[in-house]
Structures are given as C-alpha cells and as structure tokens.
C-alpha cells in the first residue's frame, strides 16, 4: 500500500527506495556489503526461503532504503528468484534500480538490463569489475551504453570500494526526480513494435494501468509473450483482445513461440550493444580460471581434488569448532551454573527454582551455545566455496552421482557435512537454489550419522561388540547412507514426483572473496541461529526439565512424568527388542540431542541418586581466571587441530562419565541383537529438535520438519523391527 502511494509528484519526499538487481556472480553482494556494511539486515522474502537483504541508511540527508533483489539472469516467470525480483519491481515500484553489471560478461548482463528497462523505472548501471575487464584488455565505452539505453552508467570496483560514492550520488539524484530520468526507449524492431501498439491500446484502460500501478509497455510485452502469471493475475483474456491481427503477422514471420522470439530479440540487441561499446583484444589469452579448471575439473583429477577439498573443509569445520564447543560447555556447566546457584541461594530461592534455572535454563543455554561454533565455521566455509567459484565446480563434478537419486550436484556438500552435525548441514542447503532440491536434501541429511550419535554407539558397541567395534560402527554409517539412497528414490517417485529441476549453471570465474564478505555472511547466519533457534531450544530444554523433575521431589525416576511417559510408550518398542521404560524414556529425551540418550540412561538405570561429591567450589575470581585460561586453551587447541589436520586423522570418541557402570547395566538390559536394533533405531529415528528448528528456520514452514519426523520414525521402527525379528528368526 505504502509503495503504491509513492509518486513522482513529490520531489521533496525524504524516503527513497533503491533496488539492486543483477546477474548472479556480478558482484552484487560485495557491492551491497560495501555500501551498507553493518547496517545490512538479512531476512527472507515472505513465504519463501530466498534470502532478502535490506539496509536503511542516510545519504545526503535523505533516508534511503536499499533492497537487494535475488541474483537472476532474467525476469521470466519460471524460477522463484525471478518471480520475487519482478514482483518486487512491478508492485513495490522502487524509485530507482541499480543494475550491477559484470563488465567481463557484458552481453549476458545487458540482456537482463534490457528487461529491467521495460519496467520504465529510472535505471543506473553499476558497471562492476572494471579492473578485471581492464586486465583482460577490454575497453568499454560506458557513455555509449548510457546514451543508447537512456540510463546512467557508473564504473565501479566493489571489492576495492571504487566508484560507489559516485554510484550512490547518481542513484539518489535519479530517484529524487524520476520524471527527468525515465529510461530511454529501446525499440524492439518494427514488427514487434507494430504488434505491441494495438496491444498497448487495448490494455491502456485496464484499471491497474489507469491507477498507475502497471507500466504499460511491460504489460503489453507480457501479454504478447503470453506470460501465464501476468495474464491470470490481472485477469487478461489474451484471446479476447482485438490483437489477433497484430500477433498473426508476428507468428507467421517468427513461429508460434513469441516468448522465444522476444528473448531472441533482446539477445540480438544485447549483442549489438556489446559490439558497439566493447573493444576486445584480437587474441584471447588463456585465463587463470581455465588453467585452474584444467586441473580441478580434469577427468582423472576432478574427483580426487574434490574429495580432498571436502575432507579438508569437514576437518577444519569440526576441528576448529570442537574446542570452542567444549569451552562453551565448560562455561555453562561450570562457572555460570555455580554463579546462578550462589545467587539463588543468596536470595533464598526454593530448591525447585534453583534446579529449574541451573539444569533447565542454563543447561538449555549451554545446548544452544554448543551449536554456535560449528554453524559459524560451516557458514564461513560454505561462503568461501561459493564466493571463490568452487561450489559450482563441486556441483559439476558430483552431479552425475547425486542426480541418480534425484538430487543436485550441490546436494553432496550438505549431506557430507551431516556426518559432523546435521544442524549446520541443514543450513548449508541454502546453497541449493531450487526449492525441490533443497527440501529433498534437507530430508535426507538426518540419515547421515552425526557426531552426537557416536556416544550412543560407543556405549553399546563397548558393551556388546568390543571385539569387532570398528566393523559394527562402520556398518551403522553405511546403513544410514544406504537408507538415504533408498529414501531418495522413494521421495523422487512420491513426494517430489514430476519434472526434475534442470541443471543449467554458470561456472563463474574463480575470484578471491573479500574477508569482509565472508565475515558478514558468517556472522549473519550465526546471529540468526542464536536468536531464532535459541529461543525454541531453550523452551524444549525447560520442558524436558519439567518432565524429568515433576512431580517435584520425585525420587525414583520411574515415578516422574518422563518415567510415566516411558512406561506408556514402552510397548511400542517391545517388538524391536527394547520395550522397557528406561529405553523409551532415553529415546524421548534423545530428541533434544541424540547424545542425551546416553546421559538419560545413566540417570534412569541408576535409580539411587548418585551421591555427588562436594568439591570445594572455586571463588568468583578463580572462575573468571579459569574462563580466560580455558578460552586461550580452546584457541590453542583449534590452532593445533588445523595443523594436525594434515597429519593422520584419529577418531576419538569421548566417553561420557560413568560410562563403565552404564555398560555393565546395559549388558544386562539388552542382548547383542536388541542392542544393534537399538543403535539402528537411534541412527534413524526422528531428528533432534535442533535439526527440526533449523529446518523450520531455513524453510519458513514446519512442513518439512513434520515430514522428517513422520518418515524417520516409521523408517526407524521398521528397520529395527526387521533387524530384531529377522535376527531372532535366524537364531541370533
């Protein structure tokens, strides 16, 4: 509503909107970051998972809001990004469009520019990466482009902050007086213009046009192209319009598909414009990108290089994050808990409140914080992969394999990261553009056995399969992958039936991403997780505290609400070989995070409250010093890990405290067969709450989280049933 009331009749208005549009890989993101910096706000476009960046800033005493449109190659109505970009431009009517154009790739970028000009909004081209173009020996006549298209052209180098001030000044001056800066008229050739005239004539009385809400030329072009979205949205019966004669002539000359003819025409114009404005050197040098690709995409080296890169990123992500996760853990379970306890004791708070705050709230905070380091590390590397141009190559190398189970080449990386932790892996699906690819990948991620499931395996394998520990562990990981392949096939045929998305992807030149860009993206993602996901996780942690501790004063955990729920649900697990209330209570709490299965077992299998030894509590100052010392230790350890990454990898699973006692108890409560069935169940059953929240967060709906709960619970039950009952049949 607000936007439609904006008009050019009021040149004194203060608030101006600048929309930034351009092809992917044209440096749009770098340009926005350079202009907006820390004022950048990252959110989502309503109802979709596409990122929306906005910034409010002041320029020359005016309030400017900067809106970053998704990077697209076109304004056609076929992809989510394109629809978002064009709906925004048509409906919200920004005062000016800043079109970021890659100077090294003029023709394809200008094809998009021509579509922007159809909207009649003042346009400023940021002719970006002029340094790279100069390096290639390109000479570009910016004034010529400006005069032919009737817009402004400002050369920029966003990575070096060059030309951005001039760009903003020009954009603001255009926005202030749009009437004087309406884009020039670009003729699409006699036959198209002759067909457009009667269409425009027939549409000029359409209420949306009369109200000044639809640019007439754009509207007429869309009707000529028979753009389904526009026709239905504005209730236009193309066949009822008196335009048959005009269209017939065009179709006779150029075939039935006028949409294709118009694309051809625009490309023809872009090519002509490029010829006029661009002087290239006679001989094309082999570029650095081509020399790198000769190795990286080589038939024999491509896969080894890719696997090495993935291994490195996986190791770095979890090795760098690990010590900081431990540090956060120590911080919350140690000093923070002690301080809270002392404070509450001092205030003479009742026991239940102390327990709620220390175990529920601070314990929950500890959980949230534990995920922050891997998410930061993961987003850093994903941004690095994308910004450098390698992500597209990774997809190119892996697509054949992933395509077989209905996925996209880019799906491989999130799936691989899932072995470390499913949570950052779900966030890593952001690299997939198509909503279908993205959802399918996210649904399969929980089948990758994450690090939190390892402590469960360690206890059970230790209790039953100590002699073949390696083989049994390995079999669980492979089982998960096998299930992912099968589920991929099933989903492809059911939930995601229909045409598989296309794989038509630019392989952009390799570029060095700026540190500023890397840090901004990493920070935004981590911050979002902390604020949005953090709240939910905290609520769940408190809920579980209630379940475990109520009715208040319960001594025997079997009498707690959790114990009662465990008893009620135990029969469900009986056919799987572990129908005890202890096992089901552990599985229920394991929903918070799968390693909790073990810590719950330690509590429920030891009904007598373990008399904790009272240690002399350290003083406040000692605590503070310890926090500092342990942080320095974490830094040192992360640094050591980075270097030892190049050494021999050792899998070291940390055993929970009291694991020996637990193993003895478990050895009595389970048989080897039911233990294996239990481990398979833990591997497959519903993802932990944090993964579900990440899915909700990433997709903007609970739908996919719900589907994950449903299918994984069914899959886990079936698999454990088949293993247990099958095993019994063959006499195991």
């Amino acid at each position, binding site marked *: 509503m607000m936007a439609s009331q904006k008009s050019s009749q009021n040149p004194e208005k203060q608030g101006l909107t600048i929309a930034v549009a351009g092809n992917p890989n044209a440096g749009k993101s770098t340009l926005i970051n350079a202009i907006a910096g820390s004022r950048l706000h990252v959110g989502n476009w309503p109802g979709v998972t596409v990122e929306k960046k906005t910034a409010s800033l002041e320029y020359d005493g005016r309030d400017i809001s900067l809106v970053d449109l998704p990077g697209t*190659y076109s304004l*056609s109505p076929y992809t989510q990004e394109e629809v978002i970009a064009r709906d925004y431009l048509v409906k919200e009517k920004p005062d000016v469009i800043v079109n970021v154009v890659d100077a090294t790739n003029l023709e394809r970028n200008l094809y998009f520019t021509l579509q922007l000009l159809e909207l009649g909004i003042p346009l400023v081209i940021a002719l970006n990466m002029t340094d790279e173009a100069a390096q290639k020996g390109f000479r570009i006549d910016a004034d010529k482009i400006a005069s032919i298209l009737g817009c402004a052209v400002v050369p920029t180098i966003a990575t070096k902050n060059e030309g951005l001030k001039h760009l903003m000044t020009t954009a603001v001056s255009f926005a202030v007086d749009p009437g004087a800066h309406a884009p020039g008229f670009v003729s699409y050739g006699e036959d198209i213009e002759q067909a457009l005239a009667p269409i425009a004539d027939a549409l000029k009385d359409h209420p949306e046009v009369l109200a000044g809400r639809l640019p007439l030329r754009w509207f007429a072009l869309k009707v000529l192209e028979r753009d389904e979205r526009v026709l239905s949205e504005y209730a236009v019966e193309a066949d009822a319009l008196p335009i048959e004669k005009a269209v017939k002539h065009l179709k006779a000359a150029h075939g039935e598909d006028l949409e294709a003819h118009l694309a051809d025409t625009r490309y023809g114009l872009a090519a002509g414009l490029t010829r006029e404005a661009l002087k290239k050197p006679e001989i094309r040098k082999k570029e650095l990108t081509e020399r790198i690709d000769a190795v990286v*995409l080589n038939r024999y080296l491509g896969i080894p290089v890719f696997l090495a890169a993935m291994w490195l990123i996986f190791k770095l992500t979890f090795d760098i994050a690990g010590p900081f996760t431990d540090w956060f853990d120590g911080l919350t379970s140690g000093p923070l808990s002690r301080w809270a306890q002392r404070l509450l004791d001092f205030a003479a708070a009742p026991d239940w409140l102390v327990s709620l705050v220390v175990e529920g709230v601070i314990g929950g905070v500890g959980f949230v914080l534990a995920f922050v380091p891997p998410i930061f590390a993961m987003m850093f590397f994903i941004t690095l992969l994308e910004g450098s141009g390698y992500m597209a190559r990774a997809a*190119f190398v892996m697509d054949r394999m992933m395509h077989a189970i209905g996925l996209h080449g880019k799906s491989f990386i999130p799936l691989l990261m899932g072995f470390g932790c499913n949570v950052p892996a779900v966030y890593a699906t952001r690299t997939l553009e198509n909503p279908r690819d993205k959802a399918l990948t996210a649904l399969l991620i929980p089948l990758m056995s994450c690090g939190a499931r390892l402590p469960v395996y360690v206890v059970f394998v230790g209790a039953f399969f100590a002699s073949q520990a390696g083989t049994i562990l390995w079999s669980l990981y492979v089982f998960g992958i096998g299930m992912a392949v099968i589920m991929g096939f099933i989903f492809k045929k059911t939930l995601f039936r229909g045409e598989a998305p*296309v*794989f*038509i992807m630019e392989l952009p030149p390799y570029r060095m991403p700026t540190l500023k860009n890397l840090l901004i993206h990493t920070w935004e993602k981590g911050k979002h997780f902390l604020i949005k996901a953090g709240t939910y996780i905290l609520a769940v942690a408190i809920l579980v505290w209630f379940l475990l501790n109520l009715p208040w004063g319960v001594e025997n955990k079997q009498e707690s609400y959790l114990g009662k729920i465990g008893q009620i649900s135990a029969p469900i697990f009986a056919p799987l070989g572990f129908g005890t209330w202890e096992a089901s209570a552990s599985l229920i709490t394991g929903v918070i995070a799968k390693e909790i299965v073990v810590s719950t077992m330690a509590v429920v299998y030891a009904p007598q409250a373990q008399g904790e030894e009272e240690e002399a509590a350290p003083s406040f100052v000692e605590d503070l010093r310890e926090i500092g010392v342990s942080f320095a230790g974490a830094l040192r350890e992360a640094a050591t890990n980075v270097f030892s990454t190049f050494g021999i990898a050792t899998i070291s699973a940390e055993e929970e405290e009291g694991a020996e006692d637990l193993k003895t108890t478990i050895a009595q409560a389970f048989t080897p067969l039911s233990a294996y069935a239990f481990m398979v169940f833990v591997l497959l059953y519903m993802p932990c709450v944090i993964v579900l929240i990440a899915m909700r967060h990433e997709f903007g709906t609970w739908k996919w989280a719900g589907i994950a709960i449903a299918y994984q619970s069914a899959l886990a039950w079936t698999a454990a049933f088949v293993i247990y009952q099958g095993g019994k049949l063959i006499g195991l």
Partner: protein
Amino acid sequence: MTLADLKPGEAGKIVKINAEGALKRRLMDMGVVGGTGVRVEKVAPMGDPIEVRIKSYALSLRRGEAKSIEVEAQ
C-alpha cells in the same frame, strides 16, 4: 545433430531449442539462442554434465538438456 553429440574441443552454431516452457526459457536466458556459437570444453569426470563456452562465459548443463539443443557443426 545436438549439442550432446559434440566432443570436447568441437564447436558448433545453435540452430534451435527443441524444448518447451521453463527449460527452453532458461536456456535462452543463459544465452542459448539461435545463431550463437558454442564450444564444448569439458565433460565431468563421471561423464555428465558437460561444460560449454557460449557468449564468452562457461556454462554447464546435463547431457539430457544438451540433447534438446540442435546445433550445426562448424
């Protein structure tokens, strides 16, 4: 012949796209329009997709999609 029939190093000129709707428009938006020169650069290690050079940039697409692009050899 189609773009999928060209081997690495071979070049051709696009004649037309035998596809409809989203696939056709996507290809056109990426510069796959009649009369444009195209050269196959590489085949991915597992045999699919392929990389082509068109309008001075590198584009990758699956063989299935390349089959819908009719070319004449140069």
